[in-house]
């Protein structure tokens, strides 16, 4: 407990952090809410002396936008597909990593590599891998995935280029995001596994529990707090998806033939800013906040019922 005489000292020590937080976090949040509820708000007009009426026009307008609905759909689809998929894969990999003795450090390092690699760089590698095979603007594009398909006797698929479809684009993004999301989840789950008392497994062995039942009835429930954690953080990160798509498609957020096809909510917010539409961007940001908040609440609610002790 801080002596009341020295309370100013406590405030002094906290001041740098508090001041920075006030300027860069608290004020922007308040300002976002303000801008969102001023009809047709634009910073430039405000500086020019314009006034705005209070209302929800920004919201009603973006909810009518085709671009926003598309961004919402893409973001939601990516979340709903990649979060469960990456969690299940991470769980399986973590259990496998935990059960091997030789080279486990080596494999842990390998699985952790994506985490320390720049996501734009990974995206460019993915773009190269999923390229079509042929010549584009005098460059040979040896897309490794298509080469592999051809070697196996399939026709090459246009994954991400001009004649690609929304489905193939999404498949690439799902693979990318899942792969990119694995390391963090594996790390958390592996940590959880290593703290599980080995006696539970010995007890299960004595009781003749099959491997599968041991996994579903003992490992998963005992890991449920960690699983809940990676699912919640996964959904929060998923709804903020942006840089992965820039990594693969560049800031056109889609193939050159259909720019913005894979735009996400965050991408939509960014798009509004250079158009001097801060009111619209703020409203979209608030909608994103409400979505993330609601999903997290649902996660926590389900988590409470499903996670034990």
């Amino acid at each position, binding site marked *: 407990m801080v002596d009341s005489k020295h309370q100013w000292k406590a405030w002094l020590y906290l001041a740098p952090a508090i001041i920075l937080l006030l300027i860069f976090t608290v004020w922007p949040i308040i300002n976002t809410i303000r801008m969102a509820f001023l009809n047709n708000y634009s910073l430039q007009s405000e500086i020019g002396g314009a006034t705005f009426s209070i209302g929800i026009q920004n919201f009603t307008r973006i909810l009518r936008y085709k671009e926003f609905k598309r961004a919402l759909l893409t973001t939601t689809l990516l979340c709903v597909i990649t979060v469960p998929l990456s969690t299940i894969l991470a769980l399986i990999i973590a259990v496998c990593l935990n059960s091997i003795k030789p080279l486990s450090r080596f494999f842990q390092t390998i699985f952790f590599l994506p985490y320390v690699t720049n996501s734009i760089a990974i995206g460019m590698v993915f773009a190269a891998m999923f390229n079509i095979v042929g010549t584009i603007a005098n460059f040979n594009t040896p897309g490794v995935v298509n080469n592999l398909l051809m070697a196996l006797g399939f026709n090459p698929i246009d994954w991400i280029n001009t004649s690609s479809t929304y489905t193939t684009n999404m498949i690439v993004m799902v693979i990318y995001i899942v792969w990119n999301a694995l390391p963090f989840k594996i790390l958390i789950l592996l940590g959880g596994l290593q703290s599980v008392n080995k006696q539970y497994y010995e007890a299960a062995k004595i*009781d003749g529990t099959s491997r599968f039942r041991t996994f579903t009835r003992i490992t998963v429930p005992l890991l449920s707090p960690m699983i809940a954690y990676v699912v919640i953080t996964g959904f929060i990160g998923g709804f903020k998806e942006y840089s992965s798509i820039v990594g693969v498609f560049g800031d056109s957020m889609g193939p050159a033939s259909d720019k913005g096809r894979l735009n996400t909510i965050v991408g939509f917010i960014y798009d509004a800013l250079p158009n001097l539409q801060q009111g619209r961007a703020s409203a979209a940001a608030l909608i994103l906040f409400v979505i993330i908040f609601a999903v997290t609440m649902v996660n926590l609610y389900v988590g409470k019922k499903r996670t034990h002790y």
Partner: protein
Amino acid sequence: MEVRLQNLTKIFPSRNKKNPEEVVAVNDFTFTIPDGKLIGLLGPSGCGKSTTLYMLSGLQKPTSGRIFFGDDDVTELTPENRGVGLVFQNYALYPHMTVKQNILFPLQNLKGADKLSKEEMLDRAYEAAKLVQIDELMDRKPSELSGGQQQRVAIARALVKMPRVLLLDEPLSNLDARLRLQTREEIKRIQKETKITTIFVTHDQEEAMSISDLIVVMKLGVVQQIDKPQDVYDNPKNLFVAKFLGTPPINVFDGEVKNGSLFIGEEKVMNVSNVPDKKVFVGIRPEGFIVDPKGPLTCKVQNIEVMGRDVSIVSSNAASQNPIIRSIVDADVKLDGAEEVKFSLKPHKVFIFDAETEERIYLDEVK
């Protein structure tokens, strides 16, 4: 089920590469555990008792030797195929399951011909729960139970699949003193009711003495003595066993046999006609002393503790290995203010051990 151990040996390879040194956890253990008995494996930590238990359960493979349950050689069988129930030291109850689910869990694992219907499982679970008197707590989680209740759940879980052999690893070490007394009676009762051959591990000699039908005393992987509790106490085979059993512990003196007489220091305390002259250790149980003004053994009184029924005399003697000698005598002995006390000894409470081998030297008179 009779359990037979044949030359059972467990060697752990060294973990230290620079100084490779194998650890022989259990060394050539041969013993037949009679059917339906309660056996206590007793010894200090690191004596191989838990390793023995884990080899019986199948969680650890012996380096050599065989294990038989009845006529079946189970040495190569996996734990689940042995039909053993194991109660872990920390109980290892699944924390996310209720008591009922914990007890049902082994039954739900049964496959093929052994598979039970839901009703049969529940019946068996409640039967096991009633046996250990926790049928009121079936819907609670382990974290909502006391240590003693968790212990019972663990026993019920081990018993529910009707094991051929029940194994208990330090069953009482996580309980407080009062509960320990209660629970050991409980284990005895459950064992008597089920008549399942039960083997438990403990480092607490009192625990082993109080409930076992037979005690196996171990030290550094080697079995020292296997006997009924009272016999282990009354007739220790060597100095280690004598020292390990008994509270207060046995008093050990440096002694010598000369011309058929046993000397402690300069004092001749007993006739031992059949023992050749040599240096010996003399172990005397606390209750082996009689205050006797004409007695041969003189000790300096340090303290007298009156404990109602008896009196405990704390004294010292130059030949004693411990700084103090503790003797328990009748309360009607009066020793007010005396600086010295003279004892005569009860011959059957005096054990003589070879000073080199620490093995017991039996006396004609006692044997």
